[in-house]
């Protein structure tokens, strides 16, 4: 199973203390990290404006649509009055989001009051997306009907097969043929797999397991974000690729689009998308391509488990019983492998797999980095429709869900945080002063006034050390910070004088391992 790379005990400690989890950025987080020049270029395309609009918080969407058709800046006070008093915090948050994304910016109105005005590029292109006008993003109107047209079910099958290729590779089942070196590189870059120390072959990581249990839309989005990070290295243009991706996400399923007019870089991007199953092309040089369901609406996967209204969404296949048995009506190797991550498989038949959720199997999963939330989420996602048609609230047996959560909590009975303990302060005033300072800088972990003891986290302590040394060097003319960053030296030939100066200084400050290296010429005080 997943090995946390336990080598030295320090590594183990860090692994126990700071377990890193899969971070899935949503569109807002991703765009916020991009420079504003990129955003300006992106807003020239209606599809991106619409995608960004959809991802805005509810109230932000109302604000934007209200001032979409207004030419002059709107006073900020007026905008603030649109929101109910009790939700004013949400209003400020929403204003921040809109400014971060450069959707609007401040502009003074005649009269001097501050106002908001929509970014003109954004406004123009959002209007185009809604009302028409502008240029189409693909030259499809000139395309003749395809005599080898593909229908929706074929596209679904194709995209499922290609995407599962990648997932199979991650799980390590030798069933499918391997995937291209490009895809492996992306998986390594994303931290979903890492090179094994022994034989150099990629093995799945903790984050990789968590990735596997996400729903498909979230997987695709996360994977694409990682891909876009590497896009510059391949010589492709990030803005172009992002634009194409969004335009693709707004296309219609089952329709073909023309590749005419696409630049070389975009064609390479298209081939990569073809490999991952987001588009289908009969041959590399075919002049048309079909987007598949994976490519549509990629950005809207952020709401956890929002199911699709499509009539042919993937059917659920898992039944969980109150005696912890799991029956999965599937014959896909991938789904069986995923189930095997946290259940103990008992029997396998051509159309059904029987497993049992035991403490051991769940602990194994937990050790591998999967959280109980993910296990429960996965079960909920793929639950058989028959279990849902009964009582909607308790589709999965609550006993089983609670027990999985309890097994997780059992492992987390102790919470560790590395820190430094300060105790035996000479005066209450010192204690209070330092406690306040620690609280302000946000590194105080625990404190007790009666015992005059407090614990500060390591970064706080290191910062404090640096400050102390700087102060010390400033005050005392004969003291220098030489050699190591946590040592101060005294220049004074009179050792006793130095020691006295140190001792006078030290009670107010914090020294560990005060060491007078008498063998050297100069006494040294180590912090």
């Amino acid at each position, binding site marked *: 199973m997943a090995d946390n790379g336990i080598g030295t005990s320090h590594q*183990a*400690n860090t692994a126990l203390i700071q377990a890193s989890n899969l971070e899935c950025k949503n569109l807002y987080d991703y765009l916020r990290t991009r420079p504003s020049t990129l955003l300006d270029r992106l807003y020239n395309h209606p599809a991106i404006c619409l995608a960004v609009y959809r991802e805005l918080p509810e109230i932000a969407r109302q604000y934007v649509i209200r001032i979409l058709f207004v030419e002059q800046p709107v006073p900020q006070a007026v905008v603030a009055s649109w929101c109910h008093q009790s939700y004013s915090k949400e209003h400020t948050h929403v204003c921040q989001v809109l400014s971060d994304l450069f959707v609007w910016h401040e502009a003074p109105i005649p009269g001097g009051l501050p106002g908001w005005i929509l970014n003109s590029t954004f406004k123009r292109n959002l209007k185009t997306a809604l009302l028409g006008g502008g240029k189409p993003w693909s030259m499809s109107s000139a395309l003749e009907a395809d005599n080898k047209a593909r229908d929706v079910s074929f596209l679904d099958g194709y995209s499922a097969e290609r995407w599962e290729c990648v997932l199979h590779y991650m799980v390590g089942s030798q069933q499918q043929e391997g995937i291209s070196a490009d895809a492996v590189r992306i998986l390594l870059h994303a931290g979903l797999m890492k090179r094994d120390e022994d034989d150099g072959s990629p093995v799945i990581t903790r984050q990789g397991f968590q990735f596997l249990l996400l729903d498909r839309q979230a997987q695709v989005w996360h994977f694409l974000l990682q891909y876009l990070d590497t896009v510059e290295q391949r010589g492709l243009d990030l803005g172009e690729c992002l634009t194409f991706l969004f335009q693709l996400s707004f296309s219609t399923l089952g329709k073909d689009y023309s590749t005419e007019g696409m630049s070389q870089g975009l064609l390479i991007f298209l081939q990569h998308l073809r490999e991952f199953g987001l588009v289908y092309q009969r041959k590399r040089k075919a002049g048309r391509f079909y987007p598949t369901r994976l490519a549509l609406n990629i950005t809207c996967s952020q709401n956890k488990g929002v199911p699709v209204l499509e009539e042919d969404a993937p059917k659920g296949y898992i039944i969980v019983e109150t005696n912890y048995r799991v029956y999965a009506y599937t014959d896909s190797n991938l789904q069986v492998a995923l189930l095997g991550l946290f259940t103990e498989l008992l029997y396998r038949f051509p159309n059904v797999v029987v497993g049992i959720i035991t403490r051991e199997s769940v602990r194994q999963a937990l050790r591998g980095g999967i959280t109980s939330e993910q296990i429960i989420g996965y079960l909920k996602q793929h639950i058989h429709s028959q279990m849902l048609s009964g009582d909607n609230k308790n589709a999965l047996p609550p006993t089983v869900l609670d027990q999985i959560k309890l097994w997780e909590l059992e492992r987390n*009975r102790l919470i560790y945080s*590395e820190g430094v*303990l*300060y105790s*035996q302060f000479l005066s209450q005033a010192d204690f209070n002063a330092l406690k306040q300072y620690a609280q302000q800088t946000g590194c105080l972990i*625990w404190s007790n006034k009666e015992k005059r003891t407090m614990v500060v986290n390591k970064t706080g302590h290191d910062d404090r050390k640096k400050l102390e040394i700087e102060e010390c060097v400033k005050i005392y003319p004969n003291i220098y910070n030489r050699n190591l960053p946590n040592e101060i030296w005294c220049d004074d030939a009179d050792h006793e004088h130095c020691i006295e100066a140190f001792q006078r200084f030290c009670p107010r400050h914090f020294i*560990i391992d005060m060491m007078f290296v008498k063998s050297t010429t100069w006494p040294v005080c180590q912090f």
Partner: protein
Amino acid sequence: MVNVMKGILVKCDPAMKQFLLHLDETLKLGRKFIIQDLDDSHLFISSDILESLQTKIDDLMDQISFPMNEKDK
């Protein structure tokens, strides 16, 4: 002079804390590891004992839990 010590702050429920104190007293981990007993739910321990501590905790959890399903083998 203020006493400064590096280590790990452990937060747990009172029952677990008693268990840790027991481990410390009976030297189950080979040596004493608790630097200071802070309050009912916090302890300050030395940092290098962490891995063996986790193993001992896992053992304890294994001892007090019973498998729900006996396999029919």
